[in-house]
């Protein structure tokens, strides 16, 4: 392998982990060398940084490879690029990147050449690749989807917008997602070149108490759904007296239609690891687990690679950056169960049992994994912590709302023109995200409802779309923030049928530990089945609400108490539609079984 930024530049460079850990290691790699003065070495480092941008020969093609792009044929595009390079004999570097979150342009590639504006090409066919690249190299960017900045040197440049001129890019505030789609997720070097691990360096410089203070001032709240202030969690664990503590990064993301965590890990795994090391350093934990969802094979693979690299360069292991603190991370992949995403249930799974939630109290902060104090944070929360430590709390806290600072990655799907992951300040209205960023519904379609926060979130009618996406505002309307899911539902979909589909999901995913969730979801599904098949009476609606309340109040964990929310929120906002099914025995949209000839009714 050739020389990388992470290696020493000359024999004089002494701090080379793991043998010589040094607090200045990371800074030295990027701004350095700091340990000795040599213009030659400085030049070497600057040259390498430049190389990472434009490739070793001044030309680089980046192919986005993440689950989302692979789903629409990015693997073929990658092969086509490789083949083009081989056949043309050009000196071109081919690299992979993660995904921007602009999923409607998948599969996309980016071509850069020194002196030309870096251009992004959208919806690339493998057949077009050679044409695209050779045309770009000849100085014509007119076919590009967007360029990163203007140079004025390319032909047709002014026909193409820059990314910042595009509404759906400009309106985002990209903090945790700033590397997504920009760097190679399998290279620690590119992460460090973009300022990675400087947050950790700063955290170690400040010491645990000051880090907690900063997280508090930044108003960071848990991004997993509940919105619990992160600093309280960290402080509680820090104050626990125990020789062993754990940090668990929750990337289970079991909620259907959530994909922001997957995208974050696949595009920038190191930011999660950095956040975990900071959390470990602050709380005094020496071991971390990343709990990855069962379907996230690629994410797990990239994380494992990232952990290995971080270990190789002394960011994990004994004496991290010479701070005297040791930390290691293990990647644990879920075996597939919705309940595994619950913070205590995932302990059970790591311990080798069925992932049923535990009774609380005791809370994880005092008795978590293996009975030891444990910090469980969503991966996005940890990434935010890394951002706060790098950028400082003052800038971070100006973004977002009064009670909750920063941004949130939102997965938008359903009936919108531009589905994808968008990072917006907390408190941005749902309307801005759906209409402004995701482009609203396709031509000729009207939105009926927005599903907010996934299965345990709830439905908002289109008329309530002005509500800010905030931990305190959404519950007032009977829905929850959840893991930042927005699903646009148009008027061709039957709300009752969707509520039934959600309930079917809960029936199959309930862990079966407590009675209300195990039996209640089943009974609710049965009633919904009856409604969808035209065999119900008005009492059933009452019964549904009654059961829903029971589930909400009596269940053991948040998954059980969240299960009735889709039903309760739809009854609240779409009562007429239920009544049409119950009294008139018809479905206003004509999509659910009631309007089909053969009605299948199963218990």
């Amino acid at each position, binding site marked *: 392998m050739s020389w990388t930024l992470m290696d020493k530049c000359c024999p004089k460079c002494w701090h080379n982990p793991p043998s010589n850990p040094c607090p200045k290691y990371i800074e030295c790699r990027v701004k350095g060398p700091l340990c000795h003065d040599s213009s030659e070495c400085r030049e070497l480092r600057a040259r390498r940084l430049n190389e990472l941008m434009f490739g070793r020969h001044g030309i680089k093609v980046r192919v986005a490879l993440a689950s989302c792009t692979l789903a629409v044929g990015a693997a073929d595009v990658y092969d086509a690029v490789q083949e083009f390079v081989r056949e043309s004999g050009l000196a071109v570097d081919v690299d992979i990147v993660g995904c921007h979150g602009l999923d409607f342009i998948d599969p996309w590639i980016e071509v850069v050449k020194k002196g030309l504006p870096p251009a992004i090409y959208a919806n690339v066919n493998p057949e077009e690749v050679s044409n695209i690249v050779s045309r770009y190299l000849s100085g014509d960017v007119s076919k590009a989807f967007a360029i990163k900045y203007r140079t004025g040197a390319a032909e047709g440049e002014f026909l193409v917008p820059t990314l910042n001129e595009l509404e759906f890019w400009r309106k985002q505030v990209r903090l945790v997602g700033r590397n997504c789609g920009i760097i190679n997720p399998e290279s620690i070097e590119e992460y460090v070149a973009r300022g990675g691990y400087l947050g950790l360096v700063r955290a170690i410089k400040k010491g645990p108490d000051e880090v907690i203070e900063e997280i508090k001032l930044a108003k960071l709240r848990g991004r997993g759904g509940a919105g619990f202030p992160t600093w309280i969690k960290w402080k509680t664990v820090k104050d626990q007296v125990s020789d062993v503590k754990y940090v668990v990064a929750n990337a289970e993301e079991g909620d*259907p239609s959530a994909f922001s965590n997957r995208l974050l890990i696949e595009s920038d795994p190191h930011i999660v690891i950095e956040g975990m090391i900071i959390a470990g350093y602050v709380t005094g934990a020496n071991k971390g687990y990343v709990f990855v969802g069962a379907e996230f094979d690629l994410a797990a693979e990239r994380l494992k690679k990232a952990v290995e690299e971080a270990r190789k360069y002394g960011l994990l292991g004994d004496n991290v950056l010479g701070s005297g603190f040791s930390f290691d991370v293990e990647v644990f992949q879920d075996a597939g169960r919705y309940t595994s995403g619950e913070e205590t249930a995932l302990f059970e799974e790591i311990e080798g*049992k069925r992932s049923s939630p535990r009774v609380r109290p005791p809370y994880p902060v005092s008795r978590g994994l293996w009975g030891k104090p444990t910090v469980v944070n969503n991966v996005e929360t940890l990434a935010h912590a890394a951002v706060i430590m790098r950028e400082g709390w003052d800038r971070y806290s100006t973004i977002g709302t009064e009670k909750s600072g920063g941004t949130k990655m939102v997965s938008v*799907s*359903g009936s919108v023109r531009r589905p994808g992951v968008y990072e917006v300040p907390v408190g941005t209205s749902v309307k801005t995200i759906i209409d402004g960023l995701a482009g609203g519904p396709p031509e000729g379609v009207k939105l009926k409802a927005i599903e907010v926060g996934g299965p345990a979130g709830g439905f908002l009618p289109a008329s309530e779309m002005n509500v800010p996406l905030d931990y305190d505002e959404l519950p007032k309307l009977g829905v929850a923030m959840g893991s930042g899911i927005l*699903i646009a539902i148009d008027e061709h979909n039957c709300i009752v049928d969707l509520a039934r589909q959600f309930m079917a999901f809960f029936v*199959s995913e309930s862990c079966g530990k407590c009675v209300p969730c195990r039996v209640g979801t089943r009974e609710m599904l049965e009633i919904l089945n009856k409604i969808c098949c035209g065999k119900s009476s008005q009492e059933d609606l009452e019964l549904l609400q009654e059961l829903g309340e029971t589930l909400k109040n009596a269940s053991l964990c948040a998954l059980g108490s969240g299960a009735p929310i889709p039903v309760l929120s739809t009854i609240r906002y779409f009562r007429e539609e239920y009544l049409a099914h119950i009294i008139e025995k018809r479905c206003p949209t004509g999509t659910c079984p009631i309007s089909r000839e053969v009605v299948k009714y199963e218990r």
Partner: protein
Amino acid sequence: MTAAEPKHLKKEGTKPKNLIQALKTIQQVEGHVSPESARAIAQQLRVPYSEVFSVATFYHLFSTEPLGKYRIYVCTGITCYIKGNMENLKYLKSVLGIKDGHHTSSDGLFTVKEVSCLSCCSHAPVVTVHMPDGTKRIVGRANPEVLQKMISELRHLARKKGWVK
């Protein structure tokens, strides 16, 4: 098959906490968790057989019955649901001749199952295929036409390997 167990399970040692890891290994090597394998795990990790069985049936990753060479998972997450993945599921089951209540085709080549979400909702409806070599192929924007093409391709592959005539 039982004789081969301890070799697969070398890494897992004898700690009960490795139960899920052991099951994952067996699932990967043998394609399913048979009662014999479950018993072998129970013996090696010193966990009750009932516990092994309870965990094996709890998680979606493990199957107690043999699966097909190509395992097709159809996403029924809400986005895929509204984009019509149920039609795809029906289509797959009918074209592969899998009856209601069954998952595997009679030639043992294909298994079709539902899965809650594949996290590629932007390209809904999504179907994913687990290949025999452990790799995964995600198919976005699926419709009967795309699936038809995919299945004939997989059949062709299988014929090449001599799994079917």
